């Protein structure tokens, strides 16, 4: 039996609506579960004391919060200029030849390599060969390798989507190529670039394996780039696998979720400001 056109439409709407609802419900359930079960553990003391270890997962998560902030800042400070520079080169300056096509393809392949492979690379190169040992710097450098292809590709696509007419308008006014890039292309591509940066911050916060292998698992309060550390995600992993303190793992997870939310909002806020300034609004 053939359905009438009207029925087909109703059915399609129903299915689309259901998938949307399922997606939202899963999110709500997931976050709700973590927050509701973890919340009772969260206290001022939990947030301000470092983990003490042991099978019961004694102590809090203060050093993990600090480690996480360290790793976010270090990674992004190294990653952003490299990623933007590479993207500007690929989008604006790279000639259209086979070598560049090969480079672009390699970058895409690299973006698909599992993070544990980067972890091994980071361990071999930064921790051992460069003798940075287990440290925040080793972890950040490893994450830079992991995220660079991704950020480059996202930023390059954002720049490529800036209309040719915009570039021509600037050139026709006597702008140099570099002025076209910095005053027209980058500002216009900013929303896309920012999205890429936010997603990289998210990856930084949520990766555990590459950091476990390159930062070590020390629960001491980090005091610099060369000290080891344990991020929240690594701590969650540790609590879940090495202790029987599931509630504390969930509580740490809840803090992690809040932290991601806050960094996203903050990055967004900064970037809107930045974009408004580059666009010349006062």
């Amino acid at each position, binding site marked *: 039996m053939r359905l009438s056109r009207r029925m087909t439409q109703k059915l399609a709407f129903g299915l689309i609506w259901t998938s949307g609802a399922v997606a939202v419900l899963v999110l709500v359930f997931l976050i709700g579960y973590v927050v509701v079960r973890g919340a009772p553990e969260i206290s001022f003391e939990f947030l301000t004391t470092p983990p003490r270890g042991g099978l019961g997962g004694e102590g809090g998560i203060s050093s993990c919060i600090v480690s996480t902030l360290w790793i976010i800042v270090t990674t992004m400070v190294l990653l952003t200029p490299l990623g933007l520079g590479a993207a500007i080169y690929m989008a604006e300056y790279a000639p259209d030849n086979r070598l560049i096509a090969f480079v672009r393809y390699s970058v895409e392949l690299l973006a698909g390599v599992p993070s544990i492979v980067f972890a091994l690379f980071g361990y071999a190169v930064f921790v051992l060969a460069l003798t940075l040992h287990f440290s925040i710097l080793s972890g950040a450098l490893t994450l830079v390798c992991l995220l660079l292809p991704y950020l480059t590709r996202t930023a390059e696509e954002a720049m490529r989507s800036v209309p040719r007419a915009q*570039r*021509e308008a600037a050139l*026709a*006014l*006597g*702008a140099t190529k570099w002025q076209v890039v910095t005053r027209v292309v980058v*500002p*216009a591509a900013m929303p896309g670039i920012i999205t890429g940066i936010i997603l990289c911050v998210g990856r930084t916060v949520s990766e555990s394996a590459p950091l476990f292998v390159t930062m070590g698992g020390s629960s001491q309060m980090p005091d610099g780039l060369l000290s080891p550390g344990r991020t929240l995600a690594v701590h969650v992993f540790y609590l879940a696998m090495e202790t029987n303190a599931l509630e504390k793992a969930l509580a740490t997870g809840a803090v992690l979720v809040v932290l991601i939310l806050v960094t996203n909002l903050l990055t967004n806020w900064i970037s809107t400001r930045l974009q408004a300034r580059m666009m*010349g609004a006062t």
Partner: protein
Amino acid sequence: MDPKITVRDVDFFYGTVQALKKVSIDLREHQITALIGPSGCGKSTFLRSLNRMNDTIYGAKLVGDVLLDGRNVYGDGVDVVELRQRVGMVFQQPNPFPKTIYENVVFGPRVLGEADSGKLDHIAETSLKAAGLWDEVKDDLRKSGLALSGGQQQRLCIARALAVEPEVILMDEPCSALDPLSTLKIEELMQELKKDYTIVIVTHNMQQAARASEWTGFFLMGELIEYGVTGEIFSRPEDKRTEDYITGRFG
């Protein structure tokens, strides 16, 4: 009077495709020259070769001479950036930057190094006045240029081009995306601007060429078929192909 721009025996290639064949033309100062012809006849390519905008196209190549005030713009040691400041351009689709009206107008002066805010304010006002847009936007200079109507956007682009004080303004079908009223405004504006600028306009609209220009050139398949005083071209064309085109037999 010497022509502002002299073009001699220009051949133009996109890779192996020849887009212009032995084009020679004199463009007179403080007058409006209209270039007409069917799509793909090379008139836009010709226009864009005058300020070397075709340089940005991969594989494009020009042979011949384009002289601005007697100096070859394709010669050695020519600063393309300076050339484009002297020879401004208005495009087919209004293309304001996604910036404020004010920032659109002062973009050119800024990239050329002007940083004095008093001077920039002055440039913004005089350019917008010259483009006939000042009265409509003077209270909204901080609004986005994209918030304007199509016709206003195109006049904003004209103001933006005027702000760097060019000598020549190239217009590539500036009205093809506009309604008749906005088109009329741009045409009136051109009559004002020709007192200070040399204007070259590519148009698909033959009435526009007949109304607005002193000189008309007819392009067909990369060749300049006929060039002369607009009144003559439209009333007594010498070439049969020109006559066929302007009487609407093809194109």
